[in-house]
């Protein structure tokens, strides 16, 4: 075990897979000599050489196309999109091309590509850096979408993503990059994509969440416990496909649920989680399934973001509505 931040765990995962598989290539804007704007690729070019870890011209669509083409020659590309708000420049390559490569080639080709990208609010970025755009990706058949909330999960999930034979969007919440350290196994390990983690067991209410909101939800659960409510918190970890089994099992036990996401109410995946619960467990429910989400505006200019972003207080308030229904 070693104490690692999430960013260190990510570097560790990249190093592990660069070592394990010579087809793994890491590239993007400033990922080479500079080690990435967040230092996620720190030291990797020096260790593995410019053939394996390299800078690209500043053009996201080109990066996406490069990844697709390299995959066709048998490589396992791990491109970085410097900030996920820049994904609009590469939407065709991601949603129009790599997501359907297997399908449109009748199963002959695939896109074993992992797109890493920082996102998430609370760190006072300029526009189009912090937006929670995971819902756009989750709605695209052919993609998988992973959002870790801890260093340990980040390492195991990133290794799984790189080994996956389908394209995986791996979103790294900027606020979690260096907000805490924890013991992370130094050896290689994987965490299965599509499997949620029950962060805390409880019997009165299920909170389904992911990303930075896992930590707000855990804080809220502590608060609710003081008020006499036993709360279960599920960290989805993968938001496409979601771990429906774990959610339903929990809801059948607690009979009450809320879904917490940082994205706007009209975005993200909360609505679809609510729909899945209604489809599969409506008779177990003692109350409607409510959502905690941000307002349906674009991500605000940074001075307003602390109010705009959902927090533990919002989670407690919504949880109480459901608990007291």
């Amino acid at each position, binding site marked *: 075990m070693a104490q690692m931040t999430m960013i260190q765990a990510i570097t560790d995962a990249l190093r592990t897979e660069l070592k394990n598989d010579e087809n793994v290539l890491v590239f993007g804007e400033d990922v080479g000599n500079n080690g990435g704007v967040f230092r996620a690729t720190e030291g990797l070019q020096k260790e593995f050489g410019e053939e394996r870890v390299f800078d690209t*011209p500043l053009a996201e669509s*080109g990066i996406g196309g490069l990844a697709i083409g390299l995959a066709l*020659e048998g490589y396992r590309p791990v491109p970085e999109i410097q900030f996920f708000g820049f994904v609009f420049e590469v939407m065709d390559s991601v949603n129009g091309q790599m997501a359907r490569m297997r399908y449109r080639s*009748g199963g002959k080709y695939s896109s074993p590509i992992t797109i890493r990208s920082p996102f998430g609010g609370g760190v006072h970025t300029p526009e189009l850096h912090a937006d929670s755009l995971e819902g756009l990706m989750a709605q695209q058949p052919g993609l998988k979408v992973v959002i870790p909330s801890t260093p340990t999960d980040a390492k195991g999930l990133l290794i799984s993503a790189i080994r996956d034979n389908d394209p995986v969007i791996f979103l790294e919440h900027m606020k979690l990059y260096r907000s805490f350290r924890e013991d992370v196994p130094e050896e290689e390990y994987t965490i299965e994509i599509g499997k949620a983690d029950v962060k805390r067991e409880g019997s009165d209410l299920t909170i389904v969440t992911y990303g930075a909101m896992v930590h707000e939800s855990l804080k809220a659960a502590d608060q609710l416990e003081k008020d006499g409510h036993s709360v279960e918190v599920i960290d989805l970890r993968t938001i496409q496909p979601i771990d429906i089994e774990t959610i339903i099992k929990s809801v059948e036990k607690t009979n009450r649920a809320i879904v917490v996401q940082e994205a706007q109410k009209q975005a993200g995946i909360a609505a679809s989680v609510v729909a899945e619960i209604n489809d599969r467990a409506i008779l177990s429910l003692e109350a409607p399934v409510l959502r905690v989400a941000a307002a349906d505006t674009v991500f605000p200019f940074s001075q307003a973001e602390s109010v705009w972003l959902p927090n533990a207080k919002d989670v407690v308030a919504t949880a109480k509505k459901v608990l007291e229904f």
Partner: protein
Amino acid sequence: MASKKKTPFDAVKVLEQIEEKFEMFQILNEEGKVVNEDAMPDLSDEQLQELMSRMVYTRILDQRSISLNRQGRLGFYAPTAGQEASQIASHYALEKEDWVVPGYRDVPQIIWHGLPLAQAFLFSRGHFKGNKSPEGVNVLPPQIIIGAQYVQTAGIALGLKKRGKEAVAITYTGDGGSSQGDFYEGINFAGSYNAPAIFVVQNNQFAISTPRDKQTKGKTIAQKAVSAGIPGILVDGMDPLAVYAATKDARDRAVAGEGPSLIETLCYRYGPHTMAGDDPTRYRTDDMDTEWEKKDPLVRFRKFLEEKDLWNEEKENEVIEKAKEEIKAAIKEADDTPKQKVTDLMEIMYEEMPYNLNEQYEIYKEKESK
């Protein structure tokens, strides 16, 4: 109004100097006469005959495809007549191990690269088996998003370079495609990595209905290569020998480690954009059609070969008969292919079906068993 102010530089002159360098490269003129003996490619008599055969075959394929489409026996089809030199002669300069990354009109090239004709018809009919090229045939399905193939080609070419393979990736778009951001990103990435790619722009004068002049102020599209720091050449796209020579040169340089090239072929599509309702009389005149038909690649190449006693009516008829027979057999094969099912598509969305598809699979299996 030109500015009277004296400046220490003349940016306009630099542009003019660059633009006038991009003259059209031609070997065979409209009459089938060699006008550029020095540039004659090193092709044997048999190879010249083979090139002609392929162009004749492709013209017949186009004619038959159009009539099959009108009979309702083919679906999506983008006519190719007029572009045989651009398509077939550029492809003829390639090797089996090269990658061909086509736009939607570039079905002939992937057929000559090894996609069975029956599969081309299945593609047209909207059957996924048409897109699954045989193992060892390095082609992608025809690209629908204009320009997307350019950035992918840069990636394939970088992969070929990293693997140390003596091969290239070639891609095709039209004059309209050269306006896309992906066009520049593709040539620029390939240039930046010195990757063995060949980017072809078949400038057939119209992007559906929008004329070439509305795409760019540039005098040529070939000159856009300069912006990426790669060689570019403007070729008579109705001249199979010029197209072949330019592509062969680009390929030779690419496999020698000298990086990518851009080739603009000046050509014309005689037919509509696609068979789905486009009416070229809305944007082209009869005079224009007639002018371009005089430049026809088959006509001039036939004259050239007949002069050398390498071609005659009998040979041409043999090719036409062969094409017709193979088309007939391929249509039969396409007819005999079992209908595709939604469950087939579910199986190839991911390597393994996620829970939602798994559940829906059962529903569609039931639906499709009736």
